[in-house]
């Protein structure tokens, strides 16, 4: 699927971002496929072509719009694990959520050798709600675990002290979040 799906997406004018199988939060038969398109019409028309594999028996698509990241459409190529974290917030909380996120990333990324590849908005959830997908790479599950807020709060980790207050405040303005951890296929 990585090769045939990527070719099918490229032929349809899209950019294939990759395939991930679930490590935490998905069934052993589930995976995630990411692709980028010039607009929603192209996405709806072309995204299914990435899934045109006899191995794929069902799929659910989510249309996402970039917010502060990504700033280009280069597919993520780093090794390690990828966290797909969904947040739901009130639309009114978005400016604060965004500022807290970008502020935290300044020390979070170098502190954990992490990369925030995207903070997307779900197009299916309109105002007054806002649902977001934070897409982050970590070198390993051990680093992901180390970077958790509870570790920061316990004082057991000081890799990114300036990120602590921001991420804690971001949690306060979020109604809920959930995470899926994937590994590149």
């Amino acid at each position, binding site marked *: 699927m990585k090769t045939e799906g990527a070719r099918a997406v490229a032929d349809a004018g899209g950019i294939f971002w990759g395939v991930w199988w679930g490590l935490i939060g998905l069934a052993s038969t589930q995976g995630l496929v990411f*692709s980028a398109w010039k607009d929603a019409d192209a996405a709806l028309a072309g995204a299914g072509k990435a899934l045109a594999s006899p191995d794929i028996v069902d799929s659910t698509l989510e*249309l996402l719009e970039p917010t502060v990241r990504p700033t*280009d459409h280069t597919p993520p190529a780093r090794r390690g694990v990828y966290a797909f974290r969904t947040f739901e917030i009130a639309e009114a909380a978005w400016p604060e959520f965004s500022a807290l996120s970008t502020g935290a990333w300044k020390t979070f990324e170098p502190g954990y050798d992490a990369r925030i590849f995207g903070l997307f908005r779900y197009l299916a959830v309109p105002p007054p709600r806002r649902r977001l997908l934070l897409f982050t790479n970590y070198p390993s599950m051990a680093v992901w675990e180390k970077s958790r807020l509870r570790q920061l709060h316990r004082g057991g980790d000081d890799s990114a002290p300036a990120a602590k207050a921001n991420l804690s405040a971001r949690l306060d303005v979020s109604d809920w979040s959930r995470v899926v951890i994937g590994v590149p296929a």
Partner: protein
Amino acid sequence: MLKRVFVLALVLSLGACASVPMSSDAEDSADKRFEPPAAGRSALYIYRETIFGVAAEKGRASVTAGRRVIAN
């Protein structure tokens, strides 16, 4: 802001992560050999049409012979 629309697809695959050592042809044949049941007994094969096993778990599925329920 980047003007693109991204698609994240949650997919269900029958082949995901199914990379396991395969048996030899001889072992495969031996495993599939059918031994006739003893006199007075019969063998029953259950074929599950769905890939989701939950519906066929004990207590959620019945086995009938004609109209008679012979197992729950």
